[in-house]
């Protein structure tokens, strides 16, 4: 019996590994990539053909930083709804943070997350284990057992590891497994009680600020610990221009340090909070235009390796309160891709570079076999119509979280179809709608 063959034909294929975007056909057999041919050269005999004319064909996107909230906070999001949101936004792989209830600080919870993800059958889910037991920042969690169960990194994300000695041991110990430590960098003493960036807007609004230095002192400390230990450090959601400078220095010194940035930190400043809008409240906070400019430059030159959404769904009731009482975080899975396309059209970087930050960049950091079109790799693809315009309306999100700071934004670029293992999991193509209604 001949293998099931699919051809994604006529699109512009973006190969982030090669740094190329060119017309071509993607050939898939039995759920794996066979290769990319020149447009029209793949033999369509006996194959299912997916018409990708006018579309960008990207490796399935990878989001290395999401909060799926399950177990424990299913009222905010579940693994099923979160991975559905991921697919709708073009992400075929997500890595989920450990701050659930109970936290993912044991192999049993890791296994539970993987089971729930398999049951949901949407995006691939790669759990991130807690660095410390109970995320308490005191003792190492059983990282080895969790690694056996399938974690791809450790992190106490949501909290900073304030104990430098614990961070040192984590960086040393994880070397045994070759996985990175993902650090949420915010000095808790400097940030105490803070609700937004410390600057003119916070002063005007009478809100306690979180200075950029709260991030920078921790990054400087942890870079020093990497130099000491040789462990792999990944900095989550970089927000400040000085952090970028510290990263540049660390990378120039050849240290194994990587970093990510969120779409909201690439587009918004502290002024998004100006009317006490809690949908612009997150940690780290939105900072200044100078920070946005520095982050964009760092994204282009590779100082920032990945774009990650820090998708953080919350219930409406947790945001519809006094600003200082409101939960931190915004959802991001369903708005990230058009925002990144906007970066391309604004000339921040070329499309293959930006796609790399959402595919092979994060995949390399976490050692995932995805985010590539390489022959033999699982056939995960995201097909996007870069011209299609739409307006963000949170009530249409697949995510349970409606807490987006981009409500009402006009976006260009909409996911048309998503394939995982060569199977179509999401289809918004006009002809698909026509078929359904027929």
């Amino acid at each position: 019996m001949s293998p099931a063959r699919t051809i994604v034909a006529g699109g512009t294929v973006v190969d982030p590994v090669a740094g190329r975007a060119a017309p071509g056909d993607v050939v898939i057999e039995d759920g794996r990539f066979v290769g990319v041919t020149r447009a029209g050269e793949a033999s369509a005999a006996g194959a299912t053909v997916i018409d990708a004319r006018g579309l960008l064909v990207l490796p399935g996107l990878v989001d290395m930083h999401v909060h799926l909230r399950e177990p424990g906070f299913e009222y905010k999001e579940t693994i099923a709804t979160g991975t559905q949101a991921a697919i709708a936004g073009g992400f075929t792989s997500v890595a989920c943070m450990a701050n659930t209830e109970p936290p993912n600080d044991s192999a049993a919870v890791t296994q539970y997350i993987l089971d729930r993800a398999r049951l949901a059958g949407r995006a691939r889910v790669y759990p991130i284990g807690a660095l410390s037991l109970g995320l308490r920042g005191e003792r190492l969690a059983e990282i080895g057992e969790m690694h056996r169960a399938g974690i791809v990194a450790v992190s106490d994300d949501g909290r900073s590891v304030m104990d430098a000695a614990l961070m040192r041991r984590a960086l040393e110990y994880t070397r045994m497994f070759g996985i990175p430590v993902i650090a949420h960098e915010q000095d808790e003493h400097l940030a105490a009680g803070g609700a937004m960036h410390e600057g003119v807007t916070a002063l005007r609004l009478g809100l306690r600020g979180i200075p950029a230095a709260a991030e920078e002192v921790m990054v400087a400390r942890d870079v020093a610990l990497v130099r000491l230990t040789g462990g792999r450090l990944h900095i989550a959601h970089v927000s400040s221009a000085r952090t970028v400078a510290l990263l540049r220095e660390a990378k120039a010194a050849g240290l194994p340090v990587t970093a990510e940035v969120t779409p909201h930190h690439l587009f918004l400043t502290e002024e998004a909070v100006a009317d006490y809008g809690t949908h612009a409240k997150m940690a780290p906070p939105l900072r200044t235009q100078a920070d946005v400019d520095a982050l964009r430059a760092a994204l282009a030159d590779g100082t920032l390796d990945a774009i990650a959404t820090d998708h953080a769904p919350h219930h409406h009731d947790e945001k519809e309160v006094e600003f200082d009482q409101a939960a931190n975080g915004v959802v991001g899975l369903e708005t990230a891709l058009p925002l990144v396309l906007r970066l391309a059209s604004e000339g921040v970087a070329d499309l293959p570079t930006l796609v790399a930050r959402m595919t092979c960049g994060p995949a390399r950091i976490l050692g995932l076999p995805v985010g590539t079109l390489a022959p033999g790799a699982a056939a995960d693809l995201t097909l996007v119509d870069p011209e299609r315009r739409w307006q963000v309306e949170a009530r249409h999100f697949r995510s349970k979280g409606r807490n987006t700071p981009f409500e009402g934004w006009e976006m260009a670029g909409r996911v048309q179809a998503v394939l995982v293992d060569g199977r179509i999991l999401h289809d918004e193509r006009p002809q698909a709608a026509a078929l359904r209604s027929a």
Partner: protein
Amino acid sequence: MAFTQRHLLGLEGVPADEITAILDTAASFKEISERDIKKVPTLRGKTVINLFYEASTRTRTSFEIAAKRLSADTINISASTSSTCKGETLADTARNLEAMRPDAIVVRHPSSGACHLLARHLTCPILNAGDGCHEHPTQALLDLLTIREHLGRLSGLTVAIVGDVLHSRVARSNLHALRTLGATVRLVGPPTLLPPDLRALGAELHTRLDDGVREADVIMMLRIQRERQGANFFPTLDEYAQYFCLTEDAVRLAKPQVIILHPGPLNRGLEIASAVADGPYSVIMDQVTNGVAVRMALLYLLVARSKAEDALEPEALVEPSRRRTGGRA
């Protein structure tokens, strides 16, 4: 009348003619409080809720007296008796209150922006009686009225505001309104309580009291919160007083006709020497008197006038100017 606001959430961005309209209205209302029978029917049949999530004697009493002198019914709700201890959210509390059809809600709350949250949920006018470290607009308006009465103008004056500027909603409201009306504002305090970004809001910054008050027309002292001592903004209250307590020596550096303001309650010997608080240049009691007039003016402008414009109950509107000439009510 140039006043167009639907709520009074703060003074930032309120144009000069609107602030002047409030002050003029307040000035015309002052006479009511001097009468034998201190009541006019302007807000008869209206309900004003004082929703206080923070302890307050002066401000709440002032609002209550203001409403009563306008014949409004007032209800006081304080955090200790409200349902917040049962876990109700601010938005839910507000929605419940609105369902009882009040005509205005006066709100004091420890969170900055709490009044903005309420204004998003409610249609009735919200008067900010102090929200966190954000604004305390009625305090600033009564300060402005007091300064204008004593010095005849606001434009061109130099006003020194001394103390815990970082956490002060009084300082913020005064800074915005004074700048809008053309005064020079100096903010004075230790660097820990005086972030440099305040310059972007149009203030001059001074970390030495003498420099801050030199040749000033007005000195406004801020109350220092005792709990700041534990948070390392300064080592001890005693040391704070050594550097920032307003003494007669410091007052002598200011203009001869200087006036001294303080929003109260006073920490005598801490931020202000008794000799200064009780001295001839102190206008602290005038501030308290003007507080009632300013709050009457705002209730009138936000409640009576807006309803009158809707032509619902034109008889409820009694022009203060007509009252004045019309003899005792």
